[in-house]
């Protein structure tokens, strides 16, 4: 993959890391998009937790996503911000949906269903986070 995009001043604020979420962000730093799934009920979830929100089992594993998916919904925020940005929910091909940003679509809000793929960017403090661009 390409080098992460580092802007003079990132528009992405820093996530607050803690022992439960740290591995997910460490994986992102290695440009791997991972997700939690439960081997008790065979369902995935996001954000990642230590207890399955579907069945309360603690038999959880990490899956590695292909990084490809489709836009569930999105919205370009145009006013009251220094630079417009497009928030979105993307449903990964593995079936789990995550909040993210869409980049590279210009000033348009992409339509529901558009295919996208992951790309990693840096936050203000240099933490890698996944965003998505047109596939």
């Amino acid at each position: 993959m390409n080098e992460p995009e580092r802007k003079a001043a990132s528009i992405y604020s820093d996530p607050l890391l803690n022992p439960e979420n740290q591995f997910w962000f460490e994986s992102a730093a290695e440009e791997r998009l991972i997700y939690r799934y439960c081997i008790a009920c065979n369902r995935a979830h996001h954000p990642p937790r230590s207890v399955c929100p579907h069945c309360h089992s603690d038999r959880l594993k990490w899956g590695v996503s292909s990084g490809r998916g489709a836009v569930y919904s999105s919205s370009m925020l145009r006013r009251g911000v220094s630079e417009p940005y497009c928030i979105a929910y993307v449903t990964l091909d593995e079936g789990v949906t995550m909040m993210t940003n869409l980049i590279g679509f210009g000033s348009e809000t992409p339509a529901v269903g558009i295919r996208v793929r992951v790309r990693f960017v840096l936050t203000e403090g240099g933490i890698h986070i996944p965003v998505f661009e047109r596939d």
Partner: protein
Amino acid sequence: MNRKERACIVGAYEHPTRHAPDKSVAQLHAEVAHGALKDAGLDARDVDGYFCAGDAPGLGPLSMVEYLGLKPRYFESTDVGGSSYLVHVRHAAQAIEAGHCNVALITMAGRPRSEGSSGTKARTYNFLAPEAPFETPYGLVPINSYAMAAQRHMHEFGTTPEQLAWVKVTASHHAQHNPNAMLRDVVTVEDVLASPLIADPLHRMECCVVSDGGGAVIVARPEIAASLKRPLVRVIGSGEAIGYVDSSAMNITTSAASQSGAAAFAEAGLSPQDIRYASIYDSFTITVLIQLEDLGFCEKGQGGRYVADGQLIAGQGRLAINTDGGGLCNNHPANRGGMTKIIEAVRQLRGEAHPAVQIPDCGIALAQGMGGMLGSRHGSATLIMERE
């Protein structure tokens, strides 16, 4: 429980201010408390229950109880954003009916207008929440959360920008009669769609106002209510629920109003056809449309057709909503619109709404609140009230 044993709303007061740079938040709480007590014909010494949410300065109810000099034997500070006060009415009624208190005061107030708040800025209350590291870097703010619900609703059901705009047009028709409303000009669908896009597909005129102010209500035991001079307004059904995104089965076009509403209607033994006035939380136009569907006023996906063409303007259809102008035109104090939703429903039941928007012989009313963010997680509460 026999309806005559149900707790009653005996006092209601909406602060007339919409801009209060010269007052403190605690002071505004005190002013609305005084207003509601005066409306009820009660004294602060009669209050033995106190309810407030996160807009009250200090830790839970502690500082406001001291500031107001109250001696509550029952208190609560459940905070589910703008829907908190409807939850408080429900819990106050339950506490009264269980014998834990007799007169419950619920206050809310704030100064987001003076403090420069906006729906395009992140809320600071949940940076420590477990989901925050996965949301805040992406700039989740109130308007783009609701906007994603709107975009998805349009995709799934064919809802149009024109239909959404009718929610604002309806509010403006009502607000023209409210001398305290922040925005009193009647607007058209064209006006709404010509206003700037803030977060696609929502335009500026589809956003609620940012206003200072507040409101208070008082819930009391029916025997006390009967001894006062105000019309009796009974809480005959209520419900509460929390909605959130299931990342394995996405659905941001249905809200928790589907659960809180069903519970309230079941308890009251009524259906949406029995309601002729409804206060429906209107942080944004889409908020109204989705809640009307989820409460059962129309089928899921039919909200666009239901709100269009002025059918919800008082005197034009069989249901009227937000006859005070709602959060879209009248008032959204502390960025929390639930209290004003209750207050306008009480006005309608008492026959004290503006004559131009008063529903003739309004015997049953509904108030619906939603707090937090529809596109991520939110609280919902529904009240059904009856005038004796």
